[in-house]
């Protein structure tokens, strides 16, 4: 078999947007996107600092859930330690800002790149593992990083963490977060509507068959994994700067991984908009419950995870697609 086989797909291909939608509808859709982006841009001018931060941390989860979705939703490799990339980004920014006096925004590309380097490093061996073994290895590697951050005191400050110099940063980090979230979603969209995305889907559905069809699976899995690591690294850097203080236990925190997964699941994994919707809903709900009924917060969350997995395994988008309310090719 040659590679041509996949380049002339017989399966229902989500070709290009223009083929699926009449020009008028596409324009309307673009307008809607522009409008929602615009309202996000205006937001800081209208509200107080807490409300800016509230949306900022929501955007953080949009980035994280969407990125997780690339390796796990599109490609089918469940990463149960994705917070590691977030943590690497956090520490990169924190160290450069606190110890070397870099301006925080210059550290972000490096934060993302280091996360990608780590992804390349561990992806090479780990992506050979299948199913639960991959999930456990990701979880284990995250713990390795956490303990390294705890013990490598000269670099990370160990359990003391790192304090960055104080600065008014709510608005600047908000816009950085917004930009990163928009770019992440745009990237997911681009992937989903490309041959690359199609090949990832082939890997997800049946890796052996995909390989037999000529998809260079190892290489494509690596690409997907590295792409899914970049934006978490960047947003990790932004969050670290926003908080101005980081320490290992709450940075390499398994609950953040679980949040990403649950948000993507709730919205619908393997779709572009799913993680965004999931992050928006779940994050808001979590904040509300935590503020008003703190003791119930995590119990309810646990129950919620179970209910989603058992009853809406394909998420909100999956539900909508099944009912034909949403055109499959567009957002998938």
């Amino acid at each position, binding site marked *: 078999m040659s590679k041509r086989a996949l380049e002339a797909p017989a399966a229902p291909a989500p070709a290009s947007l223009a083929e699926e939608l009449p020009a008028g509808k596409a324009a309307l859709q673009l307008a809607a996107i522009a409008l929602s982006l615009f309202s996000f841009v205006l937001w800081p001018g209208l509200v107080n600092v807490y409300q800016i931060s509230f949306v900022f941390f929501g955007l953080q989860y949009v980035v994280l859930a969407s990125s997780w979705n690339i390796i796990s939703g599109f490609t089918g490799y469940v990463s149960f330690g994705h917070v590691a990339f977030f943590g690497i980004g956090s520490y990169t920014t924190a160290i450069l800002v606190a110890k070397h006096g870099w301006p925080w925004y210059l550290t972000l590309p490096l934060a993302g790149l280091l996360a990608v380097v780590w992804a390349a490093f561990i992806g090479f061996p780990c992506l050979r593992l299948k199913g639960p073994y991959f999930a456990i290895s990701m979880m284990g590697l995250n713990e390795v990083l956490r303990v390294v951050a705890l013990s490598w005191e000269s670099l990370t400050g160990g*359990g003391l963490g790192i304090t960055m110099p*104080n600065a008014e940063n709510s608005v600047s980090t908000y816009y950085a977060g917004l930009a990163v979230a928009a770019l992440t979603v745009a990237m997911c969209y681009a992937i989903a509507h490309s041959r690359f995305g199609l090949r990832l889907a082939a890997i997800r559905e049946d890796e052996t068959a995909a390989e037999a069809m000529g998809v260079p699976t190892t290489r494509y899995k690596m690409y997907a994994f590295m792409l899914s690591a970049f934006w978490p690294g960047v947003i990790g850097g932004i969050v670290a700067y926003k908080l*101005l203080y980081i320490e290992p236990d709450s940075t390499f925190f398994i609950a953040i991984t679980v949040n990403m997964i649950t948000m993507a699941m709730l919205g619908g994994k393997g779709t572009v908009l799913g993680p965004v919707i999931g992050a*928006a809903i779940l994050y808001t709900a979590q904040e509300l419950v935590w503020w008003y009924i703190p003791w119930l917060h995590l119990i309810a969350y646990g129950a919620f995870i179970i209910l989603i997995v058992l009853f809406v395994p394909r998420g909100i988008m999956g539900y909508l697609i099944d009912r034909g309310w949403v055109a499959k090719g567009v957002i998938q």
Partner: protein
Amino acid sequence: MKNLKGFMTAAAVAAAMLAFPAGAWAAQEVVVGGAISLTGRYSEPAGRLKDGRTLWVEEVNARGGLLGRKVRLVLRDDRSDPSTAVKLYERLLTQEKVDLCVAPYSSPITEATASITERYKCPIVADGAATRSIWGKGRKYIFGLVGPSDDYLRGAVEIAAKKGYKRIAIVNEDSLFSKAAANGAAMYAKKHGLQVVLKEEYPRTQTDFRPLLLKVKALNADALLGGSYFVDAAAITRQLKELNINLKIWAATVGPGLPRFTKDLGPLAEYVLGSTQWEPVPALGYPGIKEFIAKYAKRFGEKPNYHASQGYAAMLILEEAVKKAGKLDREALREQLTKLDMMTHYGRYKVGPDGFNSGKGLLLFQILKGERRLVWPEESQEVAPVVPLPAWDKRPTM
């Protein structure tokens, strides 16, 4: 189109939920807000701090409130997690718009939240943090109350030096305060010409200290000093017995000073030395100490420990500053807190130029017959310390 409809609906719902009213407090109340570790590893000492503050709120409201207004205390749980505490203070200061702030418990969390309280220029009396480095960063709105963490184990070192014990082992939890306490102990040991044979950190999640204690034993240490909180101090005490390790001195920070230490460990707690900021001993001679002990005991059914005392004292100081300023203006409060010189049941409050309460010294006690008895410094001594500690097999069977 429908996909976007779904998205927009979700966004609209989120936005609507955001619009919940800011600070649902009555306008005539003075709202004092802060994060405190109601759950998690710091919950035991943090809970005592909260009790002390609660007692003050009840009293101040009974005597007519602050500036004639009722006081409401809003303490939210930070789950012993610094980044949660940071988010909480941001919310309390910008969304809930509290009038005054109280500090969180523990040095790491205070360090993390100081950036926020500093940014919003909200003065706090840090009654739960003893690590001097927090005050070494040019911060202007944080005021110390308690003695420095470096001095916590000083008494134990001095007793060891006096008795001629040469080999000191120091272990500590890997966190801001414990580390500072351990470093301080090492410094004092050096000053007295003692040999630090082991200085090792353990992670916060540690419950099994046996290999570490075997190390202590193999090094023939005379004294073991622990920069610890509650769990670790209790576990080390139990495991010392389990491994039949006999030390001449075993002293720890925080843990032994909590009422639960004696309750949980029973006879095992005997002879453990602990450092303390304050003890419910009227002989300390501070003004109002007797009354405070009585009031607290009546309200909570046990004698106050030093955390409770700190929580109460910090509120008294805040109250005094507000009274002197005559208003809740934060700059005015900051000024008052900078120049205030005040004696409370807890000791003297008078901060230096860096905001640290430099006059406060530490005490050392030993648990004898289930009671904490002051043994150091000599001028506050209730009884002479029982050192070396009796060997495990020489103690009466329990």
